[in-house]
């Protein structure tokens, strides 16, 4: 079941690269060499208007960096970030501020994404203050409405509380209220449920889904938890060490994964049902390597049970394996 979409790309990231220069040793300075931490190394993906793309990966995959680049907190080393077709880096001043209102972010840890010394209601009202929207009375009303929308009722009571007086789940609701108060069109959610208690996770997931319906939001949903990606996303993109390995509709990728990494990730999810004999158990050797020592060719090759010489030498091309379903792997080329 695909969400109705106009086909317009709300967000498009084109050959995005984010390299962080590393501190050089004396030798490197003399030899004029510079090493980089390649957090994101050539990623192209898009979020269609009205739909949700889940960006999935483990530590060091670069998924959070992509999210931060999309929202403007990180400057790309090269590549483009396009919002509704407009190149964000070309915008400045007033245009940039207007664009800012259309794209908002929900951060991972609500304990640090809220100002500990500001009332919760004032924090929700703050974006309105900053943008001079309406009269102070109207702003207060809008903030209360936002609190009500995220389920913090009665909103008047929650308005004057401080973050430390709320539970983790409630804090995240406040963060979400703050993100939607400007009525954005694109929401970037960076692991919104990882730092929350188990029973609150479902509540937040449910809230995001209902908000999406109500507000017609497009969403980029970052997570390492495949189950929540399944529940909320229309499309999914899997990243490993700064590169895409597979992407496509979530039903397609999760029921018919092609890339060895995707298969391993899906098999890693603890299963409530008794495991049937897997047709093909994919076990990756070792652990994620140090991103400072990036493997050559296909990043997964040192760990992949199907790796060949070609995998070590060449980076894999994009191969279409289904409707909108692409994989980056020599096995399918």
């Amino acid at each position, binding site marked *: 079941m695909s969400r109705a979409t106009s086909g317009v790309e709300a967000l498009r990231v084109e050959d995005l690269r984010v390299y962080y220069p590393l501190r050089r040793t004396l030798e490197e300075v003399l030899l004029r060499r510079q090493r980089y931490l390649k957090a994101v190394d050539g990623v192209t993906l898009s979020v269609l208007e009205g739909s949700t793309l889940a960006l999935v990966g483990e530590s060091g995959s670069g998924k959070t960096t992509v999210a931060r680049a999309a929202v403007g907190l990180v400057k790309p080393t090269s590549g483009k970030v396009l919002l509704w077709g407009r190149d964000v880096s070309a915008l400045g001043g007033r245009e940039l501020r207007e664009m800012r209102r259309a794209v*908002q972010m929900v*951060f991972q840890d609500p304990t640090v994404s809220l100002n500990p010394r*500001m009332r919760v209601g004032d924090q929700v009202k703050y974006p309105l203050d900053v943008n001079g929207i309406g009269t102070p009375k109207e702003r207060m009303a809008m903030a209360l409405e936002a609190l009500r929308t995220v389920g913090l009722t009665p909103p008047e009571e929650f308005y004057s509380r401080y973050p430390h007086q709320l539970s983790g789940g409630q804090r995240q609701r406040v963060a979400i209220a703050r993100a939607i108060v400007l009525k954005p069109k694109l929401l970037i959610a960076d692991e919104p449920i990882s730092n929350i208690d188990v029973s609150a996770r479902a509540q937040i997931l449910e809230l995001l889904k209902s908000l999406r319906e109500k507000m017609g939001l497009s969403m980029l949903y970052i997570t390492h938890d495949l189950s929540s990606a399944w529940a909320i996303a229309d499309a999914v993109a899997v990243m490993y060490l700064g590169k895409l390995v597979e992407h496509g509709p979530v039903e397609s990728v999760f029921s018919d994964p092609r890339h060895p990494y995707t298969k391993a990730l899906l098999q890693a999810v603890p299963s409530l049902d008794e495991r049937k004999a897997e047709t093909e158990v994919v076990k990756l050797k070792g652990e994620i390597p140090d991103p400072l020592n990036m493997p050559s060719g296909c990043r997964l090759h040192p760990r992949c049970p199907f790796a060949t010489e070609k995998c070590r030498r060449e980076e894999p091309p994009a191969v279409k394996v289904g409707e909108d379903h692409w994989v980056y792997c020599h096995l399918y080329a």
Partner: protein
Amino acid sequence: MRLPRGFAEWGLVVGTALVAVFVALALVGESLVGPRAVSNILVVDGRVYEVPPLLPPGSSLVVEGRELVFIMGTDQLGRDVFARVVSGARFVLTVAFFSTAISAVIGTILGLLSGYIGGFLDRVLSLVMDSMYAFPGLILAIAIAALLGVGVLNISLAIAVVYIPSYYRMVRGVVLSLKAAPFVEAAVLAGASSWSIVTRHILPNVVPQIVSLLPVSFADAIITEAGLTFLGLGIEPPTPDWGFDLNKGRQFFLAGYWWIGVFPGSMIILSVLGFLLVGESLNELLNPRKVEA
């Protein structure tokens, strides 16, 4: 209201009591004991009377039928030591107050600018502040006081300079960590200006730290002030001052006239103790360390 429980709560109670006493002395002391502190010449019922010097504590004189008690004795010039001690509070605390205020304000502003703007400004300021911080405080204060001369403002400035780096470092540290905090990033995403971020997000989170540093820094200022006046800097006799009197008392101590120096010295100790207790207890209560109870 319940009884204080534990070291921190008792510390706060005792410290506040001490501080209150000294603040009261500073505010009203001089009007209570006035002229007896600066001169040994008293006018009682129209008759001029000269108080003898070096009277031991507890001495009393009968003048025109009235009994004058000198509970702390008199100093080498016949001045009432108790009066001097009480009046001295005004000078000492005023200087401590001004210097703390100046260093807190300047240190905070510089720390905010340095931390938030970063770059070249930050590097230069940090270098300057670190050098000042590394320099022995009293010596720096002496140098500046010698340059500026006497007077409340001058001595306050001399002391203020010494403590600016402490506030600078603390504020800069907090600002640096806050700059990276997600709630500041969220404010940036909302489109907030730097001014808004600094005033509504950063400053409110810096203030508690400043507040916890103030009492300790105040105590430091008292000691530094006492040190300066002990050496004869920054003050003009016959202004009553504990440090100055301590020095004078030192000279007479060996001759057996202990009260001239011991009482002012005790005032220094008690006032510093009071402020330190308040500062440390507040810190303990507001930022409790997780201890195995």
